């Protein structure tokens, strides 16, 4: 065995070390969403009703009705600890943009309506309606793999961005502003 062979073996194995180093920079749990750029999956869901709920024009909501508006969908659950962190930001930003062509909806994931209502009460109320997704079909349609997840839907009906984990005021404002500034694109 001579030095040339050593170099050869090294040349074969060091890429492995480089690969592992690359792996250190990635997060295996993070799943990049394939939805951005595609039309947002359509849904028609019931609104969660409780005393003191924000007024909703109808008992059911369809995504198609909101074409032309920016829609923010936030998946949450009462058993989700991280969802508590983002509650304040969501409520505040929703109020700030109320009536300006920006619609917020919560989607209750894998939970009972009673638990949802209790959680909302405990958190001091929600400034936007929450929708019920009893068999998680809509969640599956959006490629959900955990909560909280927040989807930003552009006025032309496409998914613009998916945020995994608790969302902040800054992220919400940034994306809403970006989408409001976009000229309406014609659907192909």
């Amino acid at each position, binding site marked *: 065995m001579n030095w040339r062979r050593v170099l050869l073996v090294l040349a074969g194995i*060091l890429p492995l070390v480089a690969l592992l180093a690359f792996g*250190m920079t990635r997060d295996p749990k993070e799943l990049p969403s394939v939805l951005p750029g595609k039309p947002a999956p359509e849904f028609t869901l019931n609104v969660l009703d409780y005393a003191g709920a924000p007024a909703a024009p109808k008992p059911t909501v369809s995504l198609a009705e909101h074409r032309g508006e920016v829609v923010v969908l936030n998946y949450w659950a009462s058993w989700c600890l991280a969802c508590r962190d983002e509650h304040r930001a969501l409520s505040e930003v929703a109020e700030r943009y109320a009536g300006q062509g920006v619609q917020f909806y919560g989607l209750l994931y894998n939970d009972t309506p009673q638990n949802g209502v209790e959680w909302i009460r405990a958190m001091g109320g929600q400034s936007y309606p929450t929708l019920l997704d009893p068999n998680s079909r809509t969640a599956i349609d959006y490629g959900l793999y955990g909560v909280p997840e927040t989807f930003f839907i552009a006025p032309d009906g496409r998914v613009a961005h998916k945020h995994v984990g608790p969302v902040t005021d800054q992220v919400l404002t940034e994306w809403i502003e970006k989408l409001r500034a976009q000229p309406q694109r014609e659907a192909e």
Partner: protein
Amino acid sequence: MIRLLGDLATMVACALALGGIFAAVRAARRQDAALLRQADSFAYAIFAVMSLATGAMVLALVTHDFSVSYVAQVGSRATPLFFTIISLWSALEGSILFWGWVLALYTALVAWRTPASLGALKGYALSVLFFVGAFFYFLLVKPASPFQLVSPVPADGPGPNPLLQNHWLMGVHPPLLYLGYVGLTVPFAFALGSLLAGRTDADWIKETRRWTLSAWIFLSAAIVAGMWWSYEVLGWGGYWAWDPVENASFMPWLTATAFLHSVMVQERRGMLKVWNLSLVVSTFLLTILGTFLTRSGILSSVHAFAGGEIGYYFLGFIAVTLIGSLVILAGRSSLLQSEGRLDSVASRDTVFLVNNLVLTAFTFTVLLGTLFPLVAEAVRGVKLSVGAPFFNKMTLPLCMLLIFLVGVGPALPWRRATPEEMKRKLLAPGIALLLTLIAAIVLRVPNVYAVLAFSFGAFALMTNLQEFSSGTLARMRAHGENAALALGRLMQANRHRYGGYIAHIGVLVMALGIAASSAYRAEYEKTLQLGESWTVGDYELRLQRVWVEEQPHRFVVGADLDVLRGGQVIDRMDPRMNYYAGRDEPLPTPAVRSRLSDLYLNLMAFDQSGTSATISVVTEPLVMWIWLGGMIVALGAGIAMLPQKKRGALRPARPAAARAQPQRELVSTGGD
């Protein structure tokens, strides 16, 4: 204070390890017995200090001293005592502490048990052990210190991961795994030591093989214990998911198995020296890779500890060890020249070469599959999964080949097999193969691989058992002993060989268990009302009760079912779901009835009113054989490890000095 004591102890261990490197190298270069004893004392001191550190941690855990960072991380007043103690290895920092302790134990054992007459070999081997030790003890001092101060001291902690609190096997699997994993550092140390000392002769083989075999036994037991734990805890009735960390423990096992076989070729023919050294070094690197995969957070897995920057340290260590080993190997290559010579293609030597080929290909396949998601992300920027279907598809053919080889190896003698010999030895097993094949086809065994596994398994079982019978008969004729005595004496005279055959039989039993339980697995699922009966195969299940229990650390929902056969109640089983605070999905505790065929119940869902429950049932035969087979493997390998006095003529390659020490029997004195 416990915390300061532990912290200090790890620092002292690190310093001692660094000092030990120099002491051991000096002793090796001067070939001085007194200096060697000095190096030994470094090893003993490190063991004492690490025992202190580990003891301090266990004490801190048991007394719920939340000022210690690790206790604050995994401790909880609500956790039962047994699980509190074993939470020592439940998270990253504690697991490294435990690793460090096992490494210190092995280093001390090497210092104690390795004869000083080996001089430079021992010295350099110790220096390598100190080097590896220095790395791990340094991790304990800085990046992964379990003894940091937590202030203000919390009143309670979150407790260990609930997955690790569900079963007593969690007290068994990790220690066995560490004894196996860390144990593989020793052959590596002897390998580099032999190169540095310029002694690649029989002494190296003897030392290396002994330690490799003992580590191999622990690793095998650990893998089987892990499979058993998976089976009893995870709820899907399976025992191997090709999870990245399962693969990480399996790969060094494959290369170590290859080494245990090919080293016999080196012993007899002086060949394959470079190959064997590469195997030993690769085995060690695979253990470090395995540790890295578990702790770096680069792959998502059931087992993974939370990642962090510690991964970079491991990466650095891998790079340094890799380059260092290659440099040493290349620098001393002149020692490793050997004349390649085989007497015949039909010989055990050739079979061992093929064995190594298949095991290496197996390792490569598992490594590729485990790391491919990373490769795909780096090249295509896409996340994809490489899961069980891939691994099963790609490795099952190799497994069939291995079963076949397990049968062929014992049937062929070393050096050369005459056609008459081959016919004599392979006739009965060949018939067994054909008969089993025909029976399997006629009985319509559902899975092709099961058919092959049964057929090749029957073949291999016959050849291995034949070795016992023919050897016993030969002894009975030669010494006039009765069967039992002859068998006993036969095994005593050739512990290595017959222990190995027993280990083979253990592997075959496991293979048959795996084949049968996979091929004949039946799954059912139904929602039952209280009092409702459900016919599942031979059994009838009746839901009697759905109950709820609040425990200090969790909330348990269970379903009690009566199991009937032929109208008689034969058992009561209670699968449960355990809800822990902060986890969205509950952890199951399936109910398992292990007989010749296992009845496996898992509670999937239940009605809030307690009137109904959804139960999934799996029936799979011969699962017990997997655990029994594992025990037989450990037994056989244990027998193979027993030292024994050499009888008969000395083999020419052995130096005279070695005659004084007990030798393991390598060539049988009777029979073939």
